[in-house]
């Protein structure tokens, strides 16, 4: 737990504990999230990296019995997003998420991307059209779907569906974009497209990505946190973690000796 990022922080996790009922899944974790950088969470299955990610948009609030302790401070307004006083919907309005499996809604391409705007009460057609087009361009999908924007989203390929979900998440101008193993259901070609896209997107938005693919973390991220058994074992600049890890457990994991 060294290496304070040199760029300004978008969020900061302080002494976060998380419990699924009585089972503690995250143990006193801390993490700085650098603004407009990509932070990767890596670690073996069950280490708590997805649990950690889902704290950032309060996904755990959907299920009874889950409990947070500690703080996740969102800058610049220093809002503690896991405070029970903060409405999870308000948090999700500012922090978007892309899931492991593409999960488009049974709607057209257009309506999928417009969904976040519509739930925010936006109904002006020209504004929706403008924002949908912009989001699809950001997600590098516009050229492929511009002629069938009113077709059902299920007609797209898996990789296109995932980029559609990225466009959907981008359409509302989120401050942080969370990726939960976004390429685990995709083939290598689609995967490299998504990776390229994620690297492009950091110009505009702060990104946190969970991945079980270490090469992916090494390729795309600026900072990497290695997690094990609900704790952050090591956090540093990505090239440092992958070339000179300071902790033995990290080295053993990235060299494939366990995991």
């Amino acid at each position, binding site marked *: 737990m060294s290496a304070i990022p040199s760029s300004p922080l978008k969020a900061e996790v302080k002494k976060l504990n998380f419990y699924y009922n009585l089972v503690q899944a995250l143990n006193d974790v801390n993490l700085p999230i650098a603004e407009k950088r990509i932070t990767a969470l890596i670690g073996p299955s069950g280490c708590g990296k997805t649990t950690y990610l889902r704290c950032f*948009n309060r*996904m755990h609030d*959907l299920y*009874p019995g889950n409990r947070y302790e500690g703080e996740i401070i969102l800058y610049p307004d220093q809002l503690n997003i896991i405070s029970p006083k903060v409405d999870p*919907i*308000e948090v*999700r*309005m500012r922090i*978007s*998420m892309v*899931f*492991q*499996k593409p*999960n*488009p*809604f*049974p*709607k057209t391409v257009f309506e999928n991307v417009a*969904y*976040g705007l*519509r*739930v*925010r009460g936006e109904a002006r057609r020209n504004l929706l059209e403008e924002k949908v087009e912009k989001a699809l361009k950001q997600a590098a999908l516009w050229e492929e779907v511009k002629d069938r924007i009113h077709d*059902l989203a*299920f007609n797209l390929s898996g990789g296109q569906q995932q980029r559609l*979900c990225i466009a*959907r*998440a981008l359409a*509302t101008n989120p401050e942080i974009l969370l990726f939960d193993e976004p390429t685990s259901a995709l083939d290598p070609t689609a995967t490299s497209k998504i990776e390229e896209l994620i690297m492009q997107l950091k110009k505009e938005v702060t990104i946190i990505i969970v991945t079980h693919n270490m090469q992916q973390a090494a390729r795309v991220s600026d900072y990497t946190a290695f997690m094990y058994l609900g704790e952050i074992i090591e956090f540093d600049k990505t090239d440092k973690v992958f070339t000179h890890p300071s902790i033995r457990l990290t080295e053993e994991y990235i060299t494939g000796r366990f995991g």
Partner: protein
Amino acid sequence: MKERGIEFILLLSALSSIFITLSIVFILLYEALGFFKDVSILEFLTGKQWTPLFAQPKFGILPLVAGTLLVTGIAVAVALPIGLIVAIYLSEYAPFRIKEVAKPILELLAAVPTVVYGYFALLFLTPILQKFIPNLSGFNALSPGIIMGLMIIPYVSSVSEDSMKAVPMHIREGSYAMGATKFQTAFKVIIPSAFSGIAAAFIIGISRAIGETMVVAIAAGMMPNLTLNPLEPIQTLTAYIVGVSLGDVPHGTVEYKTIFAAGITLFFMTLSLNILGFWFRRKIREVY
């Protein structure tokens, strides 16, 4: 050898259900054809009076069809919205404890004998309604229609709820992650995702309402009446069939054969509904 024997028995049981269905259709058609030797199809389909037991009988089926559609319409207007809301509540909102209690009670609604519902409509609901609607007659379409609607809520809600529960969790989470409320998620994502199941539930509910007999036979009156006014007494196809079957109409007469004419009309109504449902589901499946 043993395998073959088992296979043969299974085939036989499968065929028996097809055989029974076909023979019902055959008998219905055969007897109805006998009826149409005595009464022209044109008179049957366009006549505005249904008085087969009178000295000068009239055989126009329209009053019975109108009665059936009227009561079904009222029942459906009650059951579909309430059934859908109940399903949304149980699938998306209800905490586990409440669900545990509410579901069996709801299913109990379907287990009450329909005779009980009939007398409930006649002796309980009609008098109450008469306090608000003074010109409501003792037998009417409104009261059994409403009761029938309550009766078919569990049919609509349980199939709808099953299809909503089957919507994968990651679709739901996708909606919540966009900042949607529970209400927005239920109406904008869950209902469209479960649409084919909800449509099937609606069609089951409507078929059930068209075929329902006891409630209307008891509380709607036994008066073929070409009207869409829910305050008047009416008769449905099913109530006519049960009424005539219970009386002593001699076998082989035209009066006797009217049972089958009414039956075949009912059959075509539910059949077309089933075909509609089938077409609908296939269309939905193509879309998905």
